[in-house]
């Protein structure tokens, strides 16, 4: 029999050591129940400076049997984005009210895309933490 938890929310967290030379997609979890996403964070092992010439776009995605919906997105652009400090939680951004709603078997993923410029910045060993709350 189920028991009640004194839990405000649950979360899933994964780490991906792949280097982001062009882009990666990291599956965070297969939702075991319906509910909503409450937060999304990236933690990088290294600092990423803000730049309009070369930057990363981090998108939180909800996949429902092959159909993609973007829940949140944020960049490291100097204009409109933010630098990432090493080992400091970096919010992936405001959550879309409709797309944050999840169903059982939805796949939650984070996509990191690199936009090339004159420098050669890459980063790897990223932790992604997504807060989820059941209905």
């Amino acid at each position: 029999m189920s028991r009640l938890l004194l839990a405000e929310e649950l979360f899933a967290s994964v780490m991906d050591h792949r280097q982001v030379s062009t882009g990666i997609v990291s599956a965070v979890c297969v939702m075991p129940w319906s509910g909503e996403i409450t937060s999304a964070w990236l933690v990088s092992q290294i600092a990423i400076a803000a730049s309009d010439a070369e930057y990363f776009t981090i998108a939180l995605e909800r996949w429902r049997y092959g159909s993609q919906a973007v829940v949140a997105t944020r960049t490291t652009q100097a204009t409109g984005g933010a630098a990432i400090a090493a080992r400091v939680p970096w919010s992936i951004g405001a959550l879309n009210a409709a797309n944050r709603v999840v169903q059982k078997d939805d796949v939650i993923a984070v996509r990191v895309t690199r936009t090339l410029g004159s420098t050669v910045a890459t980063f790897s060993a990223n932790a992604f933490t997504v807060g989820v709350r059941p209905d």
Partner: protein
Amino acid sequence: MSLGGGGLSLMRPLGGEATPESIAAAGGALTEDLFASALDSRAYSATTTMVLFVAEAAGLVTSAALATSSGGVAQSDASYWSIALTRWRAGVATTIATKTTRTTASGGEAIAGGLQPWTFDAVVFDEAAATLAEGDVVGFVATRVGTPSNINQPNFTVRFEPT
């Protein structure tokens, strides 16, 4: 290889006696909502073992699923993956449930890839094997038979309930 985990609860005392209403109002959850997930950024090209979590309390594994970020595995009785949800107790492996990418007639299902779920929902769990004691290890053994496509960067999610 990179591993991660999650599905943990952030404890927040509510104050006073907890009721279903007060817990619901605080965004509470049930023990049956607990799950763990992990990403393995390897591409599986041979039989591979993936450890997911250590049970911190006795419990029951209730469901499992995986998803891959790219590619997929077609159904075949000649070349397929057999993926066993596994419990290790003091190093001894016991299979909780097994699912394959064999043909539908053989009880298998293709892995669609592209972040689509491949669940164990239709697979019967061995209840004794799914029963966890503190210190048990839960994970998967992906056995390659023939020459199926690689399983790329799989995420494994397992739902479990403390008892």
